[in-house]
């Protein structure tokens, strides 16, 4: 490996190590409401890391990621409220159950590509809340289910601080797993399926296996995120998971930069904070209907991002890096020519 390559990996490791440090210190440094929002960033982060495995690395678009989150959240709520399972134990169960559902959903979706897959996942996003509404006895119907808000097992932490630490610890773990998985043979197979499906088949990669597997992994991540969401808001009902949640998650993944795991951090921040920036923008206009205006601004911000950085945040950073490299090279070559002259 070239020294430059090693250097780059070192930088990445350092940058990634900075995130946990920030996570450890940020909650203490800010007010409680900020911690609450930080927990949400972590939840969205987990969800879109999973979405990125599916869309970014495997090339399958999903407009139904919010539905997978709903399944995870309902798993937690039902297990906890109906069966008295300890709230933290429901998180892995939600991940596994949702993952299995995603795997099964991926089986028929296999035959579909592009628009068809978009429709299939979009259908899922519209259907799951309705199904939840219908089976009232099990899901609590439109009323939803209320979960007891957990208090921190560690002394001296408020509930929101604890939630923030909890989600970020899990997010860190899941990020690590995704990173390891995508670096290895599985990641190569995923990318092969995305970039050259025919070549992948002819070199012995099973399309069906990897496409469904990608669905399963993506769903498992969403399931964990959904479970954490249910815990954080201490409540689930069908309206917690509108179609717009799925769209929001997809915009987050695109804004972060598909095909880059680190970029998802930016994407998650975008999902959590862009709507409130938008609201902030519209507050200056002194109108009553701040929410509709913030919707407009959110859309405009998204559009601006698409125009200004089509590769997402990760793409922008990559471009800046290339620019720096070129600048450095240019300087060196000038220095060289001066030395020889």
């Amino acid at each position, binding site marked *: 490996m070239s020294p430059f390559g090693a250097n780059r990996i070192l930088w990445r490791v350092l940058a990634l190590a900075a995130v946990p440090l920030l996570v450890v210190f940020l909650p203490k440094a800010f007010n409680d409401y900020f911690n609450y929002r930080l927990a949400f960033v972590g939840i969205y982060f987990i969800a879109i890391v999973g979405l990125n495995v599916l869309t970014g690395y495997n090339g399958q678009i999903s407009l139904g990621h919010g539905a997978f989150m709903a399944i995870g959240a309902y798993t937690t709520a039902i297990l906890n409220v109906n069966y008295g399972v300890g709230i933290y134990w429901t998180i892995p169960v939600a991940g596994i159950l949702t993952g299995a559902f995603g795997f099964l959903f991926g089986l028929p979706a296999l035959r579909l590509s592009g628009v*068809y897959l978009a429709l299939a996942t*979009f259908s899922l996003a519209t*259907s799951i809340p309705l199904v939840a509404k*219908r089976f009232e006895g099990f899901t609590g119907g439109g009323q939803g289910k209320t979960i007891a808000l957990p208090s921190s097992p560690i002394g001296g932490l408020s509930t929101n601080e604890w939630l923030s630490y909890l989600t970020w610890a899990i997010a860190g773990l899941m990020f690590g797993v995704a990173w390891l998985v995508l670096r290895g043979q599985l990641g190569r197979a995923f990318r092969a399926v995305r970039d050259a499906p025919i070549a992948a088949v002819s070199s012995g990669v099973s399309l069906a296996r990897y496409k469904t597997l990608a669905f399963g992994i993506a769903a498992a991540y969403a399931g964990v995120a959904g479970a954490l969401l249910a815990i954080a808001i201490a409540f689930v009902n069908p309206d917690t998971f509108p179609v717009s949640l799925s769209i929001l998650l997809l915009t987050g993944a695109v804004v972060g930069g598909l095909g880059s795991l680190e970029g998802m951090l930016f994407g998650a921040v975008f999902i959590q904070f862009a709507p409130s920036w938008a609201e902030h923008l519209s507050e200056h206009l002194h109108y009553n209907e701040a929410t*509709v205006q913030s919707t407009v601004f959110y859309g405009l911000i998204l559009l601006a991002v*698409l125009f200004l950085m089509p590769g997402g945040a990760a793409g922008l950073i990559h471009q800046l890096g290339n620019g720096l490299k070129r600048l450095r090279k240019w300087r060196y070559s000038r220095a060289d020519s001066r030395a020889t002259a």
Partner: protein
Amino acid sequence: MSEFFQYVVVGLANGGVYATLALALVLIHRATGIVNFAQGEMGMFCTFIAWSLITHHGLPYWPAFFLTLLIAFAGGAATYKVVIQPLSRTGELTVVMATIALLIILNGLAGWIWSPEVKFLRSPSPFAPGDHFEVGGVIVNKQDLTVIVISLICVALVFLFFRFTRLGLQMRASAVGPATSRLLGIRVAMMLSIGWGLAAVLSAVSGMLAASQLELDPNFMLIVLTYAFAAAVLGGIDSPIGSVVGAFIIGIGISLLSGYASSFLGTELQLPLALAVLMLVLIVRPAGLFGQVVVRRV
């Protein structure tokens, strides 16, 4: 039996609303290769414009209707020029995301301008809401009939335009072979822009017809978009005829489903069940009912 036909008649009216929007989706997909998720909201926005022309500017229905179509055309064409064309070089997903951004913007903008509360747009029909006649025990509502007729006229006009006019032929050519078309001197970007304009006109028609049956609020077209999208995919996303047939199948299917099965499905499960059936159909026929395989020889 007459009950069955009763549901079919009701389903046809919904089918007409879906058909115009589904056709718009197909036009865009053929020309630009993407699904325009903002298509329904374009129709919604135009319907609000029509409502505003009638309510605030005192225009009679039909002048407002046609003025709205003009505005829709200009808006659709401009959307292509300003948003879609500049982004099309950066890849399909970016363009799809841009249409999602447009969906969000238009939805919010309509609520901002006209407030989110529910409004009513009158029916294009000259008949009163209750007017009907009976054929063999089946009640045909005259307003429903008007909706079916208007949507069929629109669909027919679109087909005639593409089939028999020079501009229509050039637009088809631009969609299937943009590079060749430019070598022949066809202004492809302009053709695609006209295509977006036409699709916007169709969605405006769909919106105005839907609003006469539903209530008018910024979200009223989302469900229409879902069914129209399903119809377009069912028919084969690149097949205009398929999308229209698909739309009527879905319209009738939904009507039958709600008629016969609502007692044990409840209103909530209609959409999930319809979509599940659709998915099953697509698994059997992944290219849709009318998805065609083009014969090629090298």
